[in-house]
């Protein structure tokens, strides 16, 4: 099986002051195969969000190695990292992180505009399709402040998909949502994983959310406590 992510002895240390440092991640090794759907769980402060940020090229690692598609992160310059965030990775955050005072459609278009090379009409068309796919047809011109939390998160998912990424990283994607919206969002992720074969890694502390995935990794104090794969015939429809 192809390994999309290969992490070896990853350590992340924060220096709070000259002589005080905190080990957020204490030496983690992990492989993720293409098409996996996995959940990272753990109490707050267990290092799971830090780990996600490193996986997503948003943060740097202190030592160890991280290969994405066989390419070592440390060997890439800032522009290459930006390009990978742009084309290979789709982000979904707990706080949605949409640009305010910018329409849903424009939010979705943005990564493709940064990527460049596409005609404006092409970008618009694709953004519309994706918004339709997450069930937001007719809301294209709404600004985030006129959308509910669940709708905003669906805009964010559409945005993460526009450059056809291989991986979606979702950091507590349902943390701000009620149970009905949570089920909707998880349904979308499941479909993306099964139908498009996108590798999905999500961080959550809700067992309910983790139960949608097929692999559960539990972090504690910056180390992997548990790594379990669930063999099941996935048939969740999302509704």
């Amino acid at each position, binding site marked *: 099986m192809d390994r999309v992510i290969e992490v070896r002895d990853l350590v992340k240390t924060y220096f709070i002051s000259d002589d005080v440092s905190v080990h957020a991640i204490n030496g983690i090794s992990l492989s993720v195969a293409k098409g996996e759907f996995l959940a990272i769980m753990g109490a707050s402060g267990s290092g799971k969000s830090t780990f996600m940020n490193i996986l997503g090229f948003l943060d740097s690692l202190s030592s160890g190695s991280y290969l994405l598609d066989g390419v070592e992160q440390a060997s890439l310059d800032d522009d290459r990292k930006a390009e990978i965030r742009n084309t290979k990775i789709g982000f979904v*955050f707990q706080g949605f992180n949409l*640009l305010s005072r*910018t329409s849903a459609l424009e939010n979705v278009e943005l*990564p493709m505009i940064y990527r460049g090379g596409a005609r404006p009409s092409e970008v618009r068309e694709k953004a519309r399709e994706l918004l339709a796919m997450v069930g937001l047809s007719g809301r294209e011109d709404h600004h985030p402040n006129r959308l509910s939390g669940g709708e905003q998160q669906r805009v964010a998912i559409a945005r993460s998909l526009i450059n056809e990424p291989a991986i979606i990283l979702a950091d507590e994607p349902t943390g701000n949502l009620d149970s009905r919206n949570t089920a909707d969002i998880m349904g979308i992720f499941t479909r993306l994983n099964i139908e498009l074969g996108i590798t999905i890694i999500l961080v959550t502390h809700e067992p309910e959310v983790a139960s949608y995935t097929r692999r559960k990794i539990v972090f504690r104090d910056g180390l992997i406590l548990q790594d379990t794969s669930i063999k099941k015939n996935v048939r969740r429809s999302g509704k």
Partner: protein
Amino acid sequence: MNVSNLLLTALRSLGKNKMRSALTSLGIIIGVASVIMMVGIGNSARVSVRDKVYTYGANAMSINSERPFTEPDLERLRRSTSYIKYITPMVGRKAVNVKFENRFLESRVRGVNNDFFRIQEWPVTFGRYFTELEILSYEKVVILGDSARLSLFGNSNPVGRIILVNNVPFMVIGSLSELGQAFSGRDQDNVVIMPFTTAGLKIEGRRDFNEIFASTYSEDLVEKTAGEIRRFLRSERSIVPGQAEDFTVKTSREKLEMAEYIAKTLAILLAGIASISLIVGGIGIMNIMLVSVSERTREIGIRMAIGARRQDILLQFLIEAVTLSAGGGIAGITLGIFIYFIITIAVGWPFLFSVFSIAISFLFSGAVGVFFGYYPARKASDLKPIDALRYE
């Protein structure tokens, strides 16, 4: 991200804070408007001064002496150099009361010979110039300047009428075309011109005079001729080197140069003030851009997370700054031209549309944006994605 997208993004984010954007640009608007206005006024002033000097005669010079000249001096001066074409005494310039029937006028007398009109290239509108006989025989005849004629005779022909100059009767034999204001603001057309002989006898009460007016065959001979006259007078008056001269020779060119020097100095001064206001405007832009960067740190984080490169962020903020300053530049140019136009109308100067100064102002305002926008933009693009994203 291409430039049109960046420009769109910049315009949109400026549009979200219209009031702030407008106030930020105000410094540049005022700076550029003053540059445009000052440069325009400077040019107009220079051109109008030059015009005045040329009406005075570009090959003309005036010789003033504390020790009076007499009529034979005129001939000696003429023979001292081979370039003098016309030469005339300038008697008087004294204020006189002029009366015709029940109309009174305060005017000035000038006693000259006919060369005076040739130097000034001053045509008659009614009548004629003096005759040699009139000059030789102290004839009581006058030629009126345009505004003197208008105030005494209105639109009727003054030729042959008798007027009183300081209660002495004179016959009007002609009148002159309009010359306009001198650059001192004095009305050059309010003048009563008579033969220098008559002016000496009837008005001044003496036959010598302190000023001679002359012109050369061409403009480039003026300086040379002035030098020769100076040398001639020094030797005639036995002035040794180092001793102060009791005369002056002033050429039109010197007057022109003086006027241009004043105009230029003024322009530099004004441009200096204007550049200071542009710099202050630039600092205002930098200030607001810094505020904007820190307010929008999260936005920067989001943009980086979805794939914006450092240069995309840098350009986004730089273009915003340049849009503010160049927009302010355009508004300032418009405002400056408008005010300058109003001023030229009010003062009666020529309106000179200078594409060069407009282009320079525009480029300069853009450059101010780049210069003062770079640091904030750099600060934004140097943020680490995760720090920007986590910023509250």
